């Protein structure tokens, strides 16, 4: 069984509140690894497992108070994100990048002419599938480097949308930002990764 839609999530919530063991099995099997991946992007692999364990305990403690206003999935991700950020604050390693400080131009100077057309259009790529691109260890290292270089909130938004395939409303709840900001964050993150891939395709270097 999967927990793919809202009705299934509501059913799972009822069974969890009733204390059904099989519901806890399904909950953990469905969400643990995705939460781990999400959290490791915020805090790093080394602490991710511990943070997710703490997030689970916090979720269980608050399970009876959760009324299902958001989906179970976005509730769990919100708790996990809060745990990770609180851990970061404690370790004083947090590099806060508020939305307003990411003022870098989206494209390098000279990409567009004054009439709005491409002056230097995107060049074609040799590799046109994820499998082909991710087949190179150098490419993976470069991608990880650039993903980690993204401002935290951009990275989270990109991951929630493109990997977790969450709806915009859910992403807004988890990141506590408006829908229009989420759309800007996702676009900026994608364009930065696009620039990285374009550079890698052109030069073979990161």
């Amino acid at each position, binding site marked *: 069984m999967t927990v793919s839609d809202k009705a299934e999530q509501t059913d799972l919530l009822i069974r969890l509140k009733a204390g059904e063991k099989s519901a806890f099995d399904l909950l953990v099997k469905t969400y643990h690894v995705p939460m781990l991946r999400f959290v490791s992007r915020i805090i790093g692999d080394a602490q991710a497992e511990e943070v997710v364990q703490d997030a689970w305990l916090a979720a269980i403690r608050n399970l009876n108070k959760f009324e299902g206003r958001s989906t179970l999935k976005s509730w769990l991700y919100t708790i996990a994100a809060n745990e990770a950020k609180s851990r970061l604050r404690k370790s004083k390693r947090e590099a806060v990048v508020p939305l307003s400080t990411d003022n870098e131009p989206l494209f390098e100077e000279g990409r567009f002419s004054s009439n709005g057309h491409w002056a230097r259009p995107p060049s074609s790529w040799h590799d046109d599938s994820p499998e082909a691109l991710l087949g190179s260890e150098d490419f993976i290292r470069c991608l990880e480097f650039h993903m980690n270089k993204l401002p935290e909130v951009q990275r989270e938004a990109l991951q929630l949308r493109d990997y977790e395939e969450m709806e915009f409303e859910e992403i807004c709840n988890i990141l506590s930002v408006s829908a229009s900001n989420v759309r800007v964050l996702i676009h900026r993150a994608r364009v930065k*990764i696009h620039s990285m*891939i374009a550079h890698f395709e052109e030069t073979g270097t990161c």
Partner: protein
Amino acid sequence: MLSCHDLAHKYASDYIDGQLNWRQRLAVFMHLLICVRCRRFVTQLRLVCRVVKQRGRDVIKGSTPDLDALASRLHKEYATQKKSSSEL
């Protein structure tokens, strides 16, 4: 008329994600019909989405936590919590 600059800066991701209203969507569609450069950009941006997704899948393969033990622990924790709150 929509420019390449506008499409690349403002509309490309929203177009991919289906977040444009019908008027904006039509404007992007018409632009893409005549602009091979923007068609390439949008195709490559879609590929970025697929690369992020695939990379997430690859990362997941390397992880093998003991999920049964964790589920049992959480179940036990919840049962204990429920019992103590009913005794209050």
